[in-house]
């Protein structure tokens, strides 16, 4: 339309394409640009994203959903160690006929085993029908005999079911597993993935809860000031007077039922103090700024000013705090679960893996310890580096003050 008018006037107006892009990039665009140019930050972001993807896939039951299955021999060593180490594994516990493809732990029973021969034959590559005929079961009867024997039909059924059982039940317990196996022969790799799901979910959820509480309390205290501020400050000083781990343990002591959500609640309800202190200071600083006065002038309500006007201007502080809390809560969850005050026993977490690994180490089975430790170290390192990069990107003035 503008072009038409310009044409009427006989002058050529610049088209939209030609107008130089004068809108200055916002805080988030700038921060994203800075983060993109930060190699360490981007690499750690990718690692963190991969872990979160793993958590989602595992939570949706797409991977590692069968972590509880006993797929290997007891304390199956990692594949790269080879089977030599299985010499100490208690082979006698493995099921009869459980000799695996590699034939590492062949079990031969003294008890007469009616289907043992059948299984042997099956292994030799025969079809179930042929296999059944080699077994100790009487060979299939002729039509003539069938007419005489009243149990012929029943016998045929038994024979069929034995054969199909033998075919369907190759209790294949592997001698080695990619990352080794635990006491019951469960796959450590799958346990680690499932454990990541628990630990990361608890960390993210608890950090979100704590950040939410800290932000709301801090916003109210800083914005309203006066006696409201005094009240929240009193609340804050009470919570921060009790050492954090002691407070967590005290709450864990009285909450009788254990569960993932109990852990999230404990960590979230006790961990909001740091966010509160920062947010209160931010709101105190922002509430008298001109844009807030302008919002007041056009009749914006208190809640609107607090959360629609001020909040976007302080949200970068919230994000960095959230990121810091996730790391802290993942570590706290591991310790709680290790002590048995965390997630219930039927849920695997890095903490419960470390608890099992502690006893396994004495037996020389170190792989579960290494798997859980490595997974946790990679995630926590990546998350810490990402937090540093995020802070640098959002607040370049602070650059180089990592760890402060």
């Amino acid at each position: 339309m503008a072009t038409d008018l310009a044409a009427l006037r006989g002058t050529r107006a610049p088209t939209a394409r030609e107008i130089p892009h004068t809108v200055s990039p916002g805080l988030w665009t700038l921060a994203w640009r800075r983060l993109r140019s930060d190699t360490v930050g981007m690499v750690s972001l990718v690692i963190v994203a991969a872990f979160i993807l793993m958590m989602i896939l595992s939570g949706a039951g797409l991977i590692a959903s069968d972590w509880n299955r006993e797929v290997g021999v007891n304390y199956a060593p990692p594949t790269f160690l080879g089977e030599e180490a299985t010499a100490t594994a208690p082979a006698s516990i493995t099921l009869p006929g459980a000799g695996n493809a590699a034939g590492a732990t062949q079990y031969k029973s003294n008890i007469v085993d009616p289907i043992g021969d059948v299984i042997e034959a099956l292994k030799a590559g025969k079809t179930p029908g042929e296999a059944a005929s080699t077994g100790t079961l009487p060979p299939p009867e002729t039509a003539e005999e069938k007419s005489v024997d009243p149990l012929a039909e029943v016998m045929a059924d038994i024979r069929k079911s034995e054969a199909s059982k033998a075919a369907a039940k190759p209790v294949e317990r592997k001698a080695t597993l990619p990352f080794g196996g635990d006491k019951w022969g469960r796959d450590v790799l799958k346990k680690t993935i499932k454990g990541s799901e628990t630990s990361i979910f608890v960390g993210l959820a608890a950090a979100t809860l704590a950040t939410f509480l800290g932000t709301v309390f801090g916003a109210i205290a800083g914005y309203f000031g006066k006696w409201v501020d005094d009240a929240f400050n009193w609340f804050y000083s009470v919570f921060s007077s009790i050492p954090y781990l002691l407070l967590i343990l005290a709450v864990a002591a009285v909450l009788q039922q254990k569960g993932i959500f109990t852990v999230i609640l404990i960590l979230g309800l006790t961990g909001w103090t740091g966010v509160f202190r920062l947010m209160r200071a931010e709101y105190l600083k922002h509430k008298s700024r001109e844009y807030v006065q302008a919002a007041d002038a056009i009749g914006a309500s208190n809640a609107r000013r607090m959360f629609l006007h001020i909040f976007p201007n302080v949200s970068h502080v919230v994000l960095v705090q959230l990121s810091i809390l996730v790391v802290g809560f993942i570590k706290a969850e591991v310790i709680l679960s290790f002590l048995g005050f965390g997630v219930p026993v039927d849920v695997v977490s890095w903490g419960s893996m470390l608890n099992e690994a502690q006893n396994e180490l004495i037996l020389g089975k170190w792989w579960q310890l290494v798997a859980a430790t490595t997974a946790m170290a990679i995630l926590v390192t990546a998350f810490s580096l990402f937090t540093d990069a995020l802070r640098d990107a959002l607040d370049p003035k602070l650059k180089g003050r990592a760890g402060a």
Partner: protein
Amino acid sequence: MSAYIIRRLWQMLPTMLGVVLLVFFIFNWVGGDPAYVLAGKISNQEQIDNIRRQLGVDQPYWVQLGIFLKQIVTADFGASWSTNERVSHILLTRLGPSLTVLVPLTILATLISIGLALAVAYVRGSFTDRMVMIVCTVGLSISILVYIIVFQYVFAYKLGWFPVQGWGDSFIQNLFVYASLPILIGLVVSIAPNLRLYRTFFLDEINQDYVRTARAKGVSENRIMWIHVLRNASIPIITFLMAELPGLLLGSFLIERFFSIPGIGREVILAVERSDFPVIKAITVYVAFATIATNLLADLTYKAVDPRVQLK
């Protein structure tokens, strides 16, 4: 100065009352009737009734709160629900072992961290600096549990350099035999975060004008770092250390648990495992009071080391 201290002491009261209310809320309201917990521990119904009467469970909440306040003031929390030991006796006897490990640990960790941080800050930006920072970051991300498990296994169980666990009666033996591996682990765990933090304190000072002035008038680099920079950076370091002091009372839960050191931290874990509420209540309240007191002490020290600070 004294007016300031009196006012601060007066201001501590609401916070202390708040701690009492919070602990009361957690144990008497969230925790509910202790009869359920006690039923699993004591078979004698008469004894359970006795404990419930002492706590005033069947009376209104304000009476229960009054009983709790009296317990705190008189330091008489009755007997442990599990071992029947007096709670006050538990607190007093567990303090020594905790301090035996944590006082030397804190002193050593502080001195080593300051030395290393000064050195790293001096070569800031160099390859060494970056490597040390990477090692610290990675070291920090490994759970303290792993350090304890691995160190105990390697140095005590495999190599036999230290006893696997235990605690004796003689202070010297405890300090040099039983506490040495826990102290070593504590050092490994605490130096990484301290080093990172102190380094930033030093970096803040190194770029100040007074350092340039000192250099311009020909002061040696050693003197600049150890006298000028260290002295100014000691203000945030002392503040940080004071904030860490209440942790001394608590011990390190995990180290004490793994090495069977009969300290306060292990007592807390045992009490949580056994639902021994009187012990947890007493420890929580007193440690919180100690924290409030050290906060005041921290502000006073701050004033003492930095005359620029105005106490309001």
